């Protein structure tokens, strides 16, 4: 059999991708909210270049460093491309000098610079992200809106990273400034549409998580909140993949046995994340996290697989293919004892996928039979799995529209036959009878519901008749002659009322 090509997820649907159809969009730059937030703000003060740090005497250096940090707190509007050009350049040069200064010098991170650095960084990067220029922004197809002030912001991120990575950096001093509030604001920036910014944020957050033990629980909790909001409220957050990437390495470091908090994170957040519309954007990172968990603690296999089965995509074939990919990753590391626990529900689903009219889904499921380890698990449990798979495989071998699928199904049937010829023959023999039994069961079900519906109908009639009796008695008591029209009207009202009741 052919080996699975590594790039097998190729779009072969014959439709031109949206991005191709669209005229190539210009990369858009936009202002950040922070600049014009106050419409009556005074004109930006001009900043003038200070002497170079390297030229200053060691006694003056500290003071000059502080001055430069202070100077970099002045913000410029990059949307406006004409004004403040000189000052913008001065700030850029200063920031670049600061990056060099903290990365090449020892002994410069004395205590008084910590608050200044945090203020400078906060002032420059913390902001309410602007509304997306493109309300239907599709991260897979559209060009992201890039941060206009990136020439400065990039250097600020760079500087902050060098600061965190400086060998003299003291987390104990820094934790007074880099606190929970700081982390919360940092996490909110992960929604930035600019991938360059998210890339920096990822590294920054990773460093912070590594160095500030006291903030770890808080970081995890806030990430959970972001994910929960993404899953259940907005379905919009640009930085899911980046956060998952960080979590991947965090999970890697979890101590055993796993804390309840971590298991809850797996079940209540990572698994439901599979339901998100934008799954394709972060599925690789998500699957990595899930597999990490199973490798850490194999007893989680059952709940994870059952969770995935619960959220199995019903209409989105693209997602179904991703799920199958994740299942294969899980099966690659599964323990045989765990496999036994989930084989039945899992193979019922795989059997459905094999029979999918979407050939990519069927193909992806059938590729499982190319995996040596999975094949050995199937062989070991063939008595259970064969009966689950047989019906659909047999049917598909006769009626699937796609010849490749039919060929693959024949191979799989052959493999199964070689595994257990006797059972295979039995199943072939009983195939027809089984289908008939299923049909009969179906008819019985219909019959049951028909009877139940009749019962409901009788109830209505009973109620209506009863209402008539009462109506008649009432009218007779009042010595009113029955008028034919009146009676009809009453019957109509009864019908309406009893109908609305029956709902």
């Amino acid at each position: 059999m052919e080996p699975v090509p590594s790039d097998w997820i190729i779009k072969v649907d014959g439709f031109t991708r949206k991005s191709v159809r669209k005229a190539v969009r210009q990369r858009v730059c936009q202002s950040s909210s922070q600049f014009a937030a106050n419409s009556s703000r005074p004109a930006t003060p001009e900043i003038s270049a200070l002497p170079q740090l390297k030229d200053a005497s060691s006694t003056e250096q500290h003071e000059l460093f502080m001055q430069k940090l202070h100077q970099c707190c002045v913000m410029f509007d990059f949307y406006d491309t004409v004004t403040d050009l000189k000052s913008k350049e001065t700030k850029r040069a200063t920031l670049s000098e600061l990056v060099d200064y903290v990365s090449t010098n020892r002994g410069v991170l004395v205590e008084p610079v910590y608050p200044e650095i945090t203020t400078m960084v906060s002032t420059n990067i913390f902001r309410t992200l602007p509304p997306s220029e493109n309300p239907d922004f599709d991260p897979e197809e559209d060009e992201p809106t890039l941060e206009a002030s990136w020439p400065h912001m990039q250097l600020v991120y760079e500087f902050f990273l060098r600061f965190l990575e400086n060998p003299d950096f003291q987390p104990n001093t820094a934790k007074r400034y880099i606190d929970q509030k700081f982390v919360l604001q940092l996490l909110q920036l992960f929604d930035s549409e600019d991938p360059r910014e998210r890339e920096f944020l990822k590294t920054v957050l990773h460093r912070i998580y590594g160095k500030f033990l006291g903030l770890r629980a808080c970081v995890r909790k806030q990430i959970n909140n972001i994910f929960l909001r993404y899953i259940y409220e907005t379905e919009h957050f640009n930085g899911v993949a980046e956060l998952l990437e960080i979590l991947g390495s965090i999970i890697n470091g979890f101590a055993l046995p796993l804390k309840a908090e971590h298991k809850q994170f797996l079940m209540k957040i990572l698994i439901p994340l599979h339901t998100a519309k934008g799954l394709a954007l972060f599925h690789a990172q998500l699957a990595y996290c899930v597999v990490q968990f199973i490798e850490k603690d194999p007893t989680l296999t059952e709940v994870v697989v059952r969770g995935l089965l619960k959220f199995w995509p019903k209409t989105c074939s693209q997602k179904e293919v991703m799920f199958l990919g994740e299942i294969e990753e899980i099966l690659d590391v599964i323990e045989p004892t765990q496999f036994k626990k989930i084989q039945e529900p899992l193979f019922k689903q795989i059997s459905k996928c094999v029979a999918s009219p979407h050939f990519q889904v069927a193909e992806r499921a059938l590729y499982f039979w190319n995996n040596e380890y999975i094949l050995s698990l199937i062989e070991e449990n063939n008595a259970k799995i064969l009966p689950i798979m047989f019906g659909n495989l047999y049917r598909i071998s006769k009626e699937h529209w796609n010849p490749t699928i039919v060929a693959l199904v024949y191979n799989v049937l052959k493999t199964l036959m070689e595994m257990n010829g006797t059972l295979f023959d039995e199943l072939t023999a009983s195939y027809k009878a089984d289908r008939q039994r299923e049909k009969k069961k179906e008819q019985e079900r219909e019959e049951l519901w028909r009877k139940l519906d009749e019962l409901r109908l009788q109830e209505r009639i009973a109620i209506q008749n009863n209402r008539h009796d009462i109506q008649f008695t009432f009218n007779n008591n009042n010595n009113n002659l029955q008028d034919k029209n009146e009676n009809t009207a009453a019957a109509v009202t009864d019908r309406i009322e009893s109908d609305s009741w029956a709902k």
Partner: protein
Amino acid sequence: SCSCTVVSKQPLASKMAGADSDDSLYPIAVLIDELRNEDVQLRLNSIKKLSTIALALGVERTRTELLPFLTDTIYDEDEVLLALAEQLGNFTMLVGGPEYVHCLLPPLESLATVEETVVRDKAVESLRKISHEHSPVDLEVHFEPLVKRLASGDWFTSRTSACGLFSVCYPRVSSTVKAEIRQHFRTLCSDDTPMVRRAAASKLGEFAKVLELEYVKSDIISLFTALASDEQDSVRLLAVEAGVSIATLLPQEDLEALVMPTLRQAAEDKSWRVRYMVADKFSDLQKAVGPEITKNDLVPAFQNLLKDCEAEVRAAAANKVKEFCENLPEDSRETIIMTHILPCVKELVSDTNQHVKSALASVIMGLSTILGKDNTIEHLLPLFLAQLKDECPEVRLNIISNLDCVNEVIGIRQLSQSLLPAIVELAEDAKWRVRLAIIEYMPLLAGQLGVEFFDEKLNSLCMAWLVDHVYAIREAATCNLMKLVEKFGAEWAQNTIVPKVLGMANDPNYLHRMTTLFCINALSEVCGQEITTKHMLPVVFKMSNDQVANVRFNVAKSLQKIGPVLDSNCLQTEVKPVLEKLASDQDMDVKYFAQEAISVLSLA
């Protein structure tokens, strides 16, 4: 329907007892098997018929067997759970009426704690619904403890659900329990997770409404202030709406001290989402705080929102311009508009963002009725004209679609010079949806501009649309002609449009020939028998010999359509032979439609 429930209760119960005795027919095991079926779709179907199952079981067994089963097995696909949550909201009669309604609480409580928002929301909706069917005693014994349990649940989902239940039980419980409920709500407002704080913030207004005024002042205000300065903007923005509700509850003299500082702060929030919310709720806010505060506070706040740095906020505020001006106190309305609002509006006309301009264009015309003729001519007209020349078609369209407001005040003549180029340009826009939109305003424009102006300037446009290359435009153009005839009359039709329409019957393009038929379909009734018989019918007959089958079967369809307008003699002697000939056409479709016409017109 109230009397119905009372009356129907008795026979229902007895009938159900009958069903009860016959266990073999509907054993619960079979029914529960259906609810457990492996196939989700079948499970879903069964759940959707849950009321039928309950009916089969009778009230007693529904309470003792079905509900416990449902409560225990709440782990299923969300779709099934959603259906269940909805069903249970209508289950009161099936468990034996209001005195047993509390039996429904356990399964709904579990459903209110699941992860999926839609399920939870539906469970809360059902709980709210059945809360009204509880007696005050049951409310305290069964319902309120459930709310408390949810409010102190471990996972955020149950606490979120609890937020929606406080207001339904508060009015009908004792003052001790009321105090507890207030306490629980307070706790949730400062919950650790933003999801719960958001839920609480969104229910704050609703809860305030059922509270006694003293507690609104003592409790709600502090919660409102706290939520409005939450660290997350997603919470702060929800507080804005609550603020509006709270303001309506407070006496005027308390507003300044209790809510205005917070609302002012929201209007200047550093997050554009919060400012957007303020702009979006501005009219409600204005009504809630009354004329004095509007004059002193809201006018400058509104000006700032109209000048906001984020286009989203400006667009939301621009949308409110007319409503805001309309609701200004009458004594100072004109001064405020002229000195404070109009200057901002003028700037928005040349905004850099097209959404802002188009939001403004959709309301700006409404200002003319408020400002009167002279101000409109002097101050607004230049703005309308500028927007009519805007580069964005949506802006122009919005102006044109609201012409009726201006028409009432200054008459449309003032605009017509500028109107025409704008209409012509939109009529030829490359986007067919724009063309379609302008066609739809044609009858209105024609009515306002009058027949002379129309004949001179717009008639040719209307005819040009008939040969547009997009079918939707040709179709709309046909319908447009009918509306014009309704306005201007049959005589006008005969002189201006009918000759042109009929002329197209000789067009070499069969699509245009078909357009003639479509126009006849639309026009025959409004034009009346004489014009139809004398002018249109001969053309239709002639087209029955067209070499394109589509034209021929459309002739059959047209004859069916215009038949009712013709007299019976004409039908028998002229239409019938033509249809009979078409009925023996070699094309299958032509035959089909000819036969259909013959039978509909009863000519067989």
